[in-house]
């Protein structure tokens, strides 16, 4: 098998970007929460909730885009729950986040079973179709990789750009980053740390849920229990890898997805000299190695994990 040839293949990279999509939403969502100083370990469960909500909406006759919105709304609700516990009550972000993951994941399976009690094989919906953006899709390589994708993938790429611009160039983005660095500075300038953190966690959680919805509404066409399969945890690692920078986060998700795509190809092609489990490990080994290298010099938000209490120093 010719690895070098593979790296120049548009199909390979298109697959990588496609597989990166849920990770992009999840990583950017987590990044927004953490830049405001709140770790959101609810991500794994919130993605599952997004998976279920989006799919169910469409299955019962709803519009695809409205399904994405519904998933975002449910994600924001779980975000609000997380914010009430961690921001307003100042409880442990780890414990609350894990609790939300368990709650949201279990609740998704429960609701799915309640709605469709008598099925043996998971029913299917008509997912998002490939979108070829006129003219742009004809650019060599880039046209296939970026501009011939599911509309949700294109939305993910746009989200990265918007969030990067928001954080760097707008007053609200400055306030958000400041909240993660020194909440006292924000409060003393007449802004509300509680409000900023609540909005950040809700928005971030909404994005996570949209990432989940991609799995059932674009990547596949059915809902399986446990289909998020650890993607949320990978997003948390990728945020650290990206040093809390949205553009680096995009790079990280694509590298991770590329390893994932690579292991699929390699599994099919090689004569199974190496057990396939080793190929399955590749993306995860990448993330561990990358974390070890990158996290040593990453500048994490100073107030991450620190609850803000009014009137205290």
């Amino acid at each position: 098998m010719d690895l070098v040839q593979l790296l120049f293949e548009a199909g390979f990279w298109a697959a990588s970007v496609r597989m990166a999509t849920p990770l992009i939403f999840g990583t950017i969502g987590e990044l927004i929460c953490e830049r405001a100083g709140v770790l959101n370990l609810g991500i794994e469960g919130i993605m599952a909730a997004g998976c279920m909500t989006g799919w169910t909406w469409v299955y019962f006759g709803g519009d695809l885009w409205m399904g994405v919105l519904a998933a975002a709304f449910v994600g924001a609700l779980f975000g609000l729950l997380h914010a009430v516990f961690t921001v307003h009550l100042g409880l442990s972000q780890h414990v609350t986040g894990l609790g939300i993951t368990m709650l949201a994941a279990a609740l998704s399976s429960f609701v799915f079973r309640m709605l469709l009690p008598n099925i043996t094989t998971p029913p299917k919906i008509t997912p998002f179709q490939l979108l070829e953006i006129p003219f742009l899709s004809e650019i060599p390589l880039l046209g296939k990789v970026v501009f011939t994708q599911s509309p949700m993938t294109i939305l993910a790429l746009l989200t990265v750009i918007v969030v990067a611009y928001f954080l760097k160039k707008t007053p609200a983005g400055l306030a958000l980053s400041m909240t993660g660095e020194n909440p006292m500075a924000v409060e003393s300038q007449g802004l509300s740390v509680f409000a900023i953190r609540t909005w950040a966690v809700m928005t971030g959680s909404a994005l996570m849920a949209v990432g989940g919805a991609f799995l059932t509404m674009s990547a596949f066409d059915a809902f399986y229990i446990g289909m998020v399969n650890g993607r949320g945890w990978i997003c948390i690692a990728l945020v650290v890898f990206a040093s809390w920078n949205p553009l680096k986060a995009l790079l990280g998700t694509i590298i991770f997805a590329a390893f994932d795509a690579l292991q699929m190809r390699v599994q099919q092609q090689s004569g199974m000299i190496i057990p396939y489990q080793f190929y399955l490990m590749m993306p995860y080994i990448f993330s561990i190695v990358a974390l070890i290298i990158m996290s040593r010099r990453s500048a994490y938000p100073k107030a991450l994990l620190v609850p803000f209490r009014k009137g205290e120093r």
Partner: protein
Amino acid sequence: MISERPLLSLKAITKTFGTLVANDNIDLELNRGEVLALLGENGAGKTTLMNILFGHYRADHGTIEIDGSQLSPGSPKEALQAGLGMVHQHFTLADNMTVLDNIMLGTEPLFSLRRHNSEAITKIKRLSEQYEIDVNPNSKVNTLSVGQRQRVEILKALYRDTRILILDEPTAVLTPQESDHLFATLKLLVTEGLAIIFITHKLREVMAVSDRCLVLRHGKTIYQCRTADTTAHKLATEMVGGELPKVLRKKSELGKSLFELNNINASDRKGHQLLRDLNLKLHAGEIIGIAGVSGNGQSHLADLVSGLLTPSSGQLVLNGIQVDKPTPLHMLRKGVGRIPEDRTATGVIGDMTVLENIALEKYWKKEYSRFGMLNSRTLANHTRKLTTSFDVRCGGLHSSARNMSGGNMQKLILSRVLSENPQVILANQPTWGLDVGATAFVHRQLIDACSEGAGVIIISEDLDELFSLADTIQVMYQASLSPPIDPARTTAAELGLAMSGHRDVVHSLLLKEAQS
């Protein structure tokens, strides 16, 4: 310029927390172009009053008027818009971000699509020129010195067109030169018509910069006067509510050598030199003062003495015996008492009880534990004895240490250390943030320990403290220590220069000593 109506007037402000009356019917007026010094011990109600002014708390009674119009209570935003600005003792700056980011935060409508950076930079440049505050808006805060950070805080307030600037213990972290710089800036601000409230413990500064003084005690206005009509002594007695406990130090004969550093070097894992060629010799009955601007290696020196830092070369001699691999426990057992710099971080553990905090440095002693079990009865007796004899006010032995005031926390640490009769006492900023009464108490205790034969190393940024206590002063600058200087033959200004790296000053000081 000065109009009839005061710029700021607080009328009959009262605030209670449960049974505690934090502010009792306080009136305060402030005119344009005036510096008002607000004095009081810790817990006198200064902070509460400022929090009410800024809308962080709501007063039970009373009104706040700025320029004749009433401020609605409990709205920080309105207070800012009315022209109130505050420079906190602990700066409210985000270190990882630029000066520009810190200044611009919250000054633009949150939902505009773009930040107007270049306009902001123009305005900052104009303000810096007008008030002679020199900062580069694009540098990151963590590259700035403490003095520069304070200037950023002032600039931040000015950027919002502040008319009333409140400074909370602004000189606590500054060198004498930086303080002078700050006072010059304040003078400029006042001539432009700003009004300033200056909160401080340091009476010398009150006399130097303020026009009027207001002393609070137990939440009440005790004394109000024009600075020109009063004396530092009068202010001090009003603050404490009686004559100040006099701290006088009689120099005693030096005893045997207790602790020596000979050509000590130390570096961190990355190879940065933390300590450079240190020499120090401490005798029984001696107090050595270490002067210096914070961040010049004092904390590493403290770590070295308490056994947290292993020197890479040089000799550390304790009681005539060379210590090769110092560990905290070894140093503790051999009679080194440690009063750490940051009480809440490395002194006491806030979530643990008073008793547990006392036990932290002595649990391994035979009296307090047997077969690995704590002997809680002897510990409780011991703790009770300490809290009474050191007058530590706490909610009982089993209340968590977090709830104590800074002064009481320091007394707790002091009692833990001194009850073991240490031979060498390392006191790093022992009176930082304490009021006059608590400071005098700490000084008294250190002097008593010293006259009983202990040697004391005091690391301090407060030169007055060093001048009143130390037998010799060594200046720490960029990880190295100057030779001992006799405080009787030097001035604060000369030390200040030495602290900012003028080595020739140290040389001339030493020369002066040698000649006489």
